[in-house]
């Protein structure tokens, strides 16, 4: 491998680094970039390009060697022997030797500086070509980046990126809402009766509500949820609305950003099942008395018995 192949390699590296920096420069998502089949096709094509450049370069060297004059051949052989001594003759070692461009240790006295400091000597090896090219590429990256983001503005500003992200999210959400069934709000919410769903509601209650209302709904910072007295309405629709929008003045926070509508429906339904149960340490009743029996339920075959039970329990308290 003679000097010429250095330039092929440098070119290949340059192209490769340039390709890699595309997603960073245009600010697009790295993961989607990596998932794009085009990326991989391009990568493999580049790898072949680099390999073929080297094959061509090697072939050229071979041809040159055979047509060289005899004296030239001997010099050439000597050079190759020196290279071998420096670190093997396989492709990678030679590639590394080229990229590093270091004076072999045996010859380092040639490049030793004529000064020393407290016994510390200094060599004057060339800047490693891989290092220098890397530095140039990083500078090229910087120039292109500034041009695109700050001068030509062909790449999005942070504010534009945000707008794009929000717009895409809005479209995705609308698409979903079109297909998603069972969307509820405080005007349409009905009592769930599926036991599994109520159980999910119970789980939400434990993580989010129990702190203020106690694990058994008996109340604490917040009011007792097991009696039939309600501060903000005891209908499932009222409970749903209270959870959704909160009662900030009284300390109840709005949950609409933390729980989805379906989750709020589940937890509201669970709360309705608490009415009439007997908590360990009930807080005194607050608010107005409301008829305890839920008036509306979602059609479901499994849940009817439980609903009756809770209704029975509520009646027995009266």
């Amino acid at each position, binding site marked *: 491998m003679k000097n010429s192949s250095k330039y092929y390699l440098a070119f290949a590296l340059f192209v490769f680094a340039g390709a890699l920096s595309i997603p960073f420069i245009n600010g697009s998502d790295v993961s989607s970039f990596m998932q794009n089949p085009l990326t991989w096709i391009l990568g493999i094509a580049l790898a072949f390009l680099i390999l073929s450049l080297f094959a061509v370069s090697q072939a050229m060297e071979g041809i040159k060697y055979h047509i060289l004059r005899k004296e030239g051949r001997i010099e050439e052989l000597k050079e190759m022997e020196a290279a071998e001594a420096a670190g093997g003759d396989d492709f990678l070692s030679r590639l590394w030797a080229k990229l590093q461009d270091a004076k072999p240790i045996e010859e380092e006295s040639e490049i030793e500086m004529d000064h020393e400091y407290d016994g*510390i000597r200094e*060599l004057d090896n060339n800047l490693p070509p891989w290092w220098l090219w890397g*530095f140039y590429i990083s500078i090229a990256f910087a120039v292109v980046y500034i041009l695109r983001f700050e001068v030509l503005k062909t790449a999005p500003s*942070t504010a534009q990126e945000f707008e794009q992200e929000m717009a895409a999210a809005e479209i995705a959400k609308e698409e979903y809402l079109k297909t998603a069934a069972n969307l509820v709000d405080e005007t349409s919410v009905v009592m769930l009766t599926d036991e599994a769903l109520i159980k999910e509601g119970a789980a939400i209650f434990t993580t989010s509500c129990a702190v203020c209302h106690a694990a058994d709904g008996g109340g604490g910072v917040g009011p007792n949820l097991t009696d039939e007295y309600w501060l903000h309405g005891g209908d499932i629709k009222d409970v749903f609305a209270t959870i959704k929008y909160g009662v900030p003045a*009284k300390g109840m926070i709005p949950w609409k950003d933390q729980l989805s*509508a379906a989750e709020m429906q589940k937890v509201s339904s669970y709360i309705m099942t608490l009415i009439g149960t007997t908590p360990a340490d009930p807080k005194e009743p607050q608010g107005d008395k409301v008829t305890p029996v839920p008036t509306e339920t979602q059609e479901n075959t499994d849940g009817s018995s439980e609903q009756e039970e809770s209704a029975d329990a509520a009646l027995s308290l009266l």
Partner: protein
Amino acid sequence: MQRETFYYNNQWTRNFLIATIAWGVIGLLVGLTIALQLVFPDLNMDTSWLTFGRLRALHTNGAIFAFVGNSIFAGVYYSLPRLLKTPMASNLLSKIHFWGWQLIILSAVITLPLGITSSKEYAELEWPIDIAIALIWVTFGVNMFWTIIKRRERHLYVAIWFYIATFVTVAMLHIVNSIEIPVSFLKSYSAFAGVQDALVQWWYGHNAVAFFLTTPVLGMMYYFVPKAANRPVYSYRLSIVHFWALIFLYIWAGPHHLLYTALPDWAQSLGTVFSIMLIFPSWGGMINGLLTLRGAWDKVRDSAVLKFFVVALTCYGMATLEGPLLSLRNINAIAHYTDWIPAHVHIGTLGWNGFMIFGVVYWLLPRLYQTSLYSQKLANTHFWIGTLGIIFWALPMYVAGFTQSLMWKEFNPDGTLVYGNFLETVTQIVPMYALRALGGTLYIIGMLVMVVNVIRTASSGKFLRTEEDSAVPFGKVFEKPRGEHWHRWIERRPIQMLVWSLVVVAIGGILEIVPTMMVKSNIPTIESVKPYTVLELEGRDIYIREGCNACHSQMIRPFRSEVARYGEYSKAGEFVYDHPFLWGSKRTGPDLHRVGGKYPHSWHYNHMLDPVSMSPGSIMPRYPWLFENSLDTEHTQKKLEVMAGLGVPYEQEYIDNYAFYLDRQSAAIADELREQIDDLEIKNDDEIIALIAYLQRLGIDIKAQGTELAEEN
């Protein structure tokens, strides 16, 4: 010229070395304490001066300025005289430098746990200590330059270039970032506000890493690595190119700490590209060190010193590649505010700084005590435990950072956040915090092994207080040799070296900071943003005192996931009265910029009293003293006056009658609390009232319809 004999004084090297080790152990034990507090919040002990928010600053300051700082001085006081063939110029200045620096550290140990802090990261110390730091730093600089002037070596070795650049740049950074107006002996307000303060702070903070944790340590590397390996430095011309490129480019990169914040985009882009351009100049230092070991790799197997140096240089290379990658917008969007950043930082501090220091200690100590190391085996044990410690520290934090970030950003198809409750994303990574504490423990055990080795070595030898050397001084006349490298010119002119270093490092700062200060369009005015009320201002000072910004950011980035979680993203104009800015750099807890009005007063009251009562599983400490202490209003009026002097529009009438306004607002909040919580015992002047007032004000000014609270104010 005749050969002259002279004597090096090893006393200050030895003292700085002992200080390095002692403060190192203390600083890292504080680090372990706060790491454990994140796993076991009860370790905050309900004691103000033991809480995470206050101790975190003590840990960072201890590690940076006490551990690494003392080691730098030990390295300089040993290598500089030997490279210049003259003793340190003034024993008195060395003495003042040593004791002054230890006193500064001691004052940090006292003031930071007491909550006396400016809140600016790695610059938390209050103004009297800032002045002391400046004076001692200049003492160091004078001593260094005096020594350089008395040198017997005409040219300056590359290590000294790095020392000079360190001195001049740290002086510049420290002085500019510490411009603050005193309120009292231990309280001041930053002269800059909001976006400008953030930019100045991270220009400082980033370059504290560059010029306190990197350049002086590179200087030490250039002395101790070739010495220990007994090999020539690999490339003189690489030294030249990477030195000048490094110091020029580093300064610009500060804004990469503020990507996607309210800092103008152009400054962010400069931060990104200069970080990318830094990769190769940084690696220049790494390869010049590693390639110096060419032909000495057989020694690395046996020598603990060289092993420490090799891992240190490798960690340096890893951290300086990772840093620029983290400066790319799309990677930063994932990593910022998460534990990825502490992982990155600790590869640098534990790996690069710590291991360089340990290598120097093991190399220097036997020479100072005219003996051989007590145990090579213990030193090798230290190496392996320490390496394991770094791995156990960093890997769990990479996992934690990545996991949490993905959880923050995950949406349900209906547009709600999957993990709407921030706490879920915290409890998920607490096991990783436990593993990290294990890594820290291993690293400290390694250090304790070193302490044993150091004590045994020192007690077996005799301290060499003065060391004889001789050299021929250089003559007045210098004949330039033919074919001399152009850079030799400046190597024999230390003053030019100083001046040009300053010029080179000043460019980046000036071109970034001045336009941000001067050009109005960088920070668009928002009419509805008003100054804090006097009670809110006092609450803000409590927030600063408790170090809330160590775990909570006040900067919502323009991402869908953040807007959904916290509300409208933060705008530059919202921070114009924030002296100092409190954007934070890590979210161990949620962002608080729009927490105002989000919860009722009673929520904050209960939450500060016992966070678990409102958020089960929370790892936040309890703050019982806020419910016992009465708000100290001794300096309140002065605070308003200082703020007014800084351009915050407080009218004279308001300043004069501050007590009336303060009492009125605190009474209103206390009354509301009494209404919300039964049987509440609360006094209107409890500190908690001021803190609630501040929290409830956060981020509400730009909301179209102000809450009741805002109208009340």
